[in-house]
Every structure is written in C-alpha cells, then in structure tokens.
C-alpha cells in the first residue's frame, strides 16, 4: 500500500493567516483527495486534486478558501486561506490505489486562535 506523509502534523495558527499542508506519496497515484474532519465529526470531502489542472471542489468548498496544487503524481498541497476558528479541523490527504481502495495520511491537526 502507498505510504502517505503529511506535513505539518499539527499547527496552531492566528486567524486571518494561511497554512499550506503538504501531502507526499511514495509512489505515483492517479487519484488524490483532501478531506476535512471537524472536531467530533465525520470526514467530508473537500476536493479532488487533479494533476496538471485545477482541483475539483465539492459543494460548499471553494478554490479561494482552499487552493490546491498537484504538480505531479506523488505530491499535493492544500492551503487553508484567511483562517478563522471555524477552520479548526483535521485535514487528511487520501490516495486511491488498487482499484477504489483509499489510503489516508495521518492528518494535519489545525487549531486557529
């Protein structure tokens, strides 16, 4: 299975600032996704990171707030922009492998103060 590394693992940020989260995979993967897990909640898909093109966002998520890059088949970044306390969540990178089996990184625990 793919090994997924996320950086940072956690951060505390001031409101109004931005944080970029990195996701590195140890093998080339076609599909990469970003999820959000708000405190005590389940996971919600933010977007699909497309290699070489703009990400595909789910309802309720917009590019200005969550810009995503995917320069190659092993790397992606998610930026949380102009943060507010409501953005405090765990953000998880996921990749699809072996036919619709998704693997997840350890997540980035973000606290906005």
């Amino acid at each position, binding site marked *: 299975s793919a090994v997924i590394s996320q950086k940072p693992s956690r951060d505390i940020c001031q409101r109004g600032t931005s944080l970029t989260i990195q996701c590195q995979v140890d093998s080339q993967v076609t*599909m990469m*996704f970003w*999820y959000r897990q708000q405190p005590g*909640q*389940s*996971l*919600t*898909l933010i977007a*699909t990171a497309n290699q070489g093109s703009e990400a595909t966002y*789910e309802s309720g998520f917009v590019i200005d707030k969550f810009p995503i890059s995917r320069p190659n088949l092993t790397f992606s970044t998610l930026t949380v922009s102009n943060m507010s306390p409501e953005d405090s969540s765990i953000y*998880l990178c*996921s990749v*699809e492998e072996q*036919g*619709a*089996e*998704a*693997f*997840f*990184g*350890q*997540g980035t625990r973000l606290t906005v103060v």
Partner: protein
Amino acid sequence: AQSVTQPDIHITVSEGASLELRCNYSYGATPYLFWYVQSPGQGLQLLLKYFSGDTLVQGIKGFEAEFKRSQSSFNLRKPSVHWSDAAEYFCAVSPPGGDYKLSFGAGTTVTVRA
C-alpha cells in the same frame, strides 16, 4: 444523493464480548462499501471493503462485515473484542466503478471495558 447512516453514536462493550456496528446506505445502485477505523490521534485504517461477490467479507484484526442488499446494510462484526479495539469506526461508500470519492457515516465510538 447518497447517504450513509451509522445509527449508533457510541457503543460500550466488555472485553471478550462480541461487537456489531450498524451501517445503512442510501444509493441508487450498490456502491462500493468500506469500514475504516480511527484510533485516537491516528489516521484512518481500512478494515475491509466490499465491491461485489461474496456478501460476507473478511478484514483485518478479526473483523468481518456482511452486505445485505435487501436491507441496504453493511454491518461490521467482531466475535471477541480486545481492549485495543477501542476507537472510532466509520462506514463509507463510493460510487461503483466510479470516481472513488468517499462519503462517510457519522462514525461510531467504541469503548471497551475490562
């Protein structure tokens, strides 16, 4: 739109006792079905998956799940729980043969008492 329901928010079970976690889905066709576990401070780990075929699926850590089309259910079971099974369990679905995007249930927290 698809939805996933986990009716039990929290389950407490004694060590050595059996465990069953419920999952129901609403979808136009039979989706791909998954169970994930999230231990405190950890990422998500896939326990098992169902795409097609045998409706009883074996997974890791002694877990199994049964797909019942008539009930739109995919319940997770373990015959004898261990203290290390205390965690959050998520049922998830994705479109069959499709875009691999996962929709998750709300999760069930399992507490294991000695």
